[in-house]
């Protein structure tokens, strides 16, 4: 009798539970807003208007979402293999190095559509290699990947500071950033896409890497559910013993999965660096790697869920900035608190309401159905 709870229908699992979590997060966030003497409803309206009320707002929301799609996919791919990759932050940072090296050397030579594939390759490769070391340590030495990837975030941060105040900084500059890229190192904006809907984008940095993020989400779906490699990754994630039994090499799968995961994180760097700033700045990742964990949890590690969750977090970032601007009592730090609450409820406490909802469904299902002949779990 290993099934004390009813199995939830898919819409409840993927729709209802995230919505309940979200509602609670906003409720608590609303209380915080109330505490500092502002009207929470007004704040909510501001946030939604700021994020979706104008072409510019939507542009920013989707720009932020692009970052979170990449880092969310990074965490999700590793999840499917049973690995918790906390290192998206560092892998994305290193990805920036890959992008910058390609753009600095070729940005003045090649058109953007030739630099772009090379920059993707550079970003993915740098991110993958940064994930390779913890992966290898996990697979061959049993060092826990959570610990090693966290450590690698710090190493990445220090390394990049070292490079950005040294080798990568133009000799004449005082700022810890690379030189600006040539035209070939700049991605086209997606303003025309929103203009089709009659929206003005203005300064919003939404760019081609948003489309790359959507394509990556689709490819991750194909990888996980439609390829042999994905089958092996999932087997390993659900049951390492079954992987042994099936002759799947754990070492190989761990290393390959982590490199794919790292590559996805690395590709996040394309968006701010090649798409918006056209140079690499200190701390350009600014927490997107960690938000990716919440995005993957909330999106249940499914690419569709991840894209939706990423847009939600994009809204929080963009709308939050608007609130901070318009409500004097709400500082930027308050916005971070609200974002933190959403991460807490949607991500970390993802399973808090699950048992109650399952019981509820069990009761509803139990009252109008006879006992099913199947699903008598065994007791051992």
């Amino acid at each position: 009798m290993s099934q004390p709870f009813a199995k939830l229908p898919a819409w409840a699992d993927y729709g209802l539970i995230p919505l309940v979590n979200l509602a609670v997060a906003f409720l608590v966030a609303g209380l915080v807003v109330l505490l500092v003497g502002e009207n929470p409803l007004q704040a909510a309206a501001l946030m939604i208007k700021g994020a979706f009320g104008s072409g510019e707002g939507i542009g920013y929301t989707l720009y932020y979402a692009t970052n979170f799609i990449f880092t969310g996919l990074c965490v999700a791919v590793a999840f499917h293999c049973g690995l918790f990759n906390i290192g998206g932050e560092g892998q994305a940072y290193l990805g920036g190095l890959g992008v910058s090296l390609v753009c600095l050397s070729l940005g003045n030579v090649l058109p953007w559509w030739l630099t772009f594939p090379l920059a993707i390759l550079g970003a993915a490769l740098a991110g993958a290699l940064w994930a390779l070391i913890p992966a290898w340590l996990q697979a061959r030495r049993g060092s826990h990947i959570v610990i090693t990837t966290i450590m690698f975030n710090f190493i990445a941060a220090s390394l990049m500071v070292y490079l950005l105040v040294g080798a990568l900084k133009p000799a004449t500059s005082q700022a810890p950033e690379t030189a600006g890229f040539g035209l070939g190192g700049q991605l086209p904006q997606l303003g025309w896409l929103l203009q089709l809907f009659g929206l003005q984008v203005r300064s919003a940095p939404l760019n081609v890497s948003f489309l790359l993020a959507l394509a990556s989400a689709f490819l991750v779906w194909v990888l996980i559910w439609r390829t042999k490699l994905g089958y092996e990754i999932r087997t390993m994630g659900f049951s390492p013993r079954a992987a042994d039994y099936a002759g799947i090499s754990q070492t190989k799968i761990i290393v390959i999965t982590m490199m794919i995961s790292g590559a996805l994180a690395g590709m996040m760097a394309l968006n701010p660096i090649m798409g918006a700033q056209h140079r690499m700045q200190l701390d350009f990742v600014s927490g997107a790697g960690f938000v990716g964990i919440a995005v993957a949890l909330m999106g249940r590690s499914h690419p569709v869920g991840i894209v939706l969750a990423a847009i939600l977090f994009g809204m929080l970032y963009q709308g939050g900035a608007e609130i901070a601007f318009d409500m004097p009592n709400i500082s930027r730090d308050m916005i971070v608190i609200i974002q933190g609450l959403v991460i807490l409820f949607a991500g970390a406490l993802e399973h808090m309401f699950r048992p109650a909802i399952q019981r509820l469904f069990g009761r509803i299902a139990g009252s109008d159905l006879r006992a099913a002949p199947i699903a008598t779990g065994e007791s051992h």
Partner: protein
Amino acid sequence: MAETAIELVGIDKRFGLVHANRDIHLRIDRGTIHGIIGENGAGKSTLMSILYGFYQADRGEILVNGKKVSIADPNAAIAAGIGMVHQHFMLVENFTVLENIMLGVEGAPLLSRGIAKVRAELKRLEEDYELDVDPDALIEDLPIGLQQRVEILKALYRGADILILDEPTGVLTPPEADHLFRILKQLKEQGKTIVLITHKLREIKAVTDNVSVMRQGEIVATLKTADASVEELAELMVGRHVLLRVNKGEAKPGDVELAVEHLSVRDNRNCLAVDNVSFNVRAGEIVGIAGVAGNGQSELIEAITGIRRAVSGKVTLDGQPVDVTGKANPAELRRRGLAHVPEDRHHMGLVLAFEESENSILGYQDDKHYLKGPFLDIEAIRTDAQKKIGQYDIRPADTRLKTANFSGGNQQKIVLAREIERDPSVLIVAQPTRGVDVGAIEFIHRRIIEMRDAGKAVLLVSVELDEIRSLSDRILVMFAGRIVGECGPEAGEGEIGLLMAGVEKKAAAE
């Protein structure tokens, strides 16, 4: 004598769609041994978990000694005088017997007084019930039979008047089981009430006074054990007439298909689990390995199938060597005709979170038939799975259903179908009917014998002695990592039982 120790009135419990207990009425007399028998999933464990406070019944009442009690958790059960010995022991392995017994009832922040009290009490219990265990021995150093005795002592120390034992003999050798029954009878004579949950009919006959039969969540009969025959109980359990004996013809052994020579394997703790084992299996015969669980059978199978590295030794499959000490790979061995139905269906043989069709290719995922380049050929996989579902009568016939939602018997059929339908030359089957309902057991046994009759070499590992004896053409007995004897299927249970307990017989065949 006919005083009632426990009375259950109208106990009802659902888990979602599963109606685990339906309107259970049960009266257990004080000072008796009451057996509860039923197939896996019949609701025995659920009922006892309700009585012990792990689950709450949806409806119904529990009366202990005629008084209505509410048992919210195991502490309440203990307070009501109910103790439980679990199938899987709840002991701290690196604590001593004394520390385990004291755990949770230390009495004071400083242990010295508690220790003295436990020591005195242990001495008394030992004298009263012949339950002797060295109080200062570490649990991990004790054999399973003694560990179980510690569990019983734990319950008695907490003042249990009513003792529930859940499948207590699953891990014991026949002599150990006999000793346990002697202890239970002793306890009964001292006025304790014992509830024995089991699926083994023989035990019921051997030790109980009354027996209740459960089927699909209901108690279908409560009888005096003396009045019921084994056949009658089996029929009540399953709901129809069952064949307890397997019909099979003479074996016609051919060439050696699988040869194991001087194989030694270490377990996860790096202890020698398989110690210089040699045997072979011929085409057209079933070789059974009998033994109490944990005597190296698992490690032996894992080494032969390439899952675990062997320390030394040689294995030959179909005349060709298998690199068991080096690069042997399960996927490669499968291609060479070695099929493996593993003992741990839930974690090894299947991925429970997968759809049925996804499990139907586990281990064969490299097969060209299931792939289009790097992509899975979903259609081919589902068609193939659907075919096997028909051939093996797997229910429900849904290739897209999550494997966890199939019953134990149907899960095992998924594994069997996958392994047998590849037409292997050697089939290794471990615990083929563990957690499987009686109806499916017949089916599975028939398939295994069909494999033999088709000229395949079959190696069967089981802790169920009855299964080994009824299927095997030759029986090897494993104890402490070594093959301690070989006998024919006609050998008596007593003979094999002694070998299983490590009592080597001089006449045992080489």
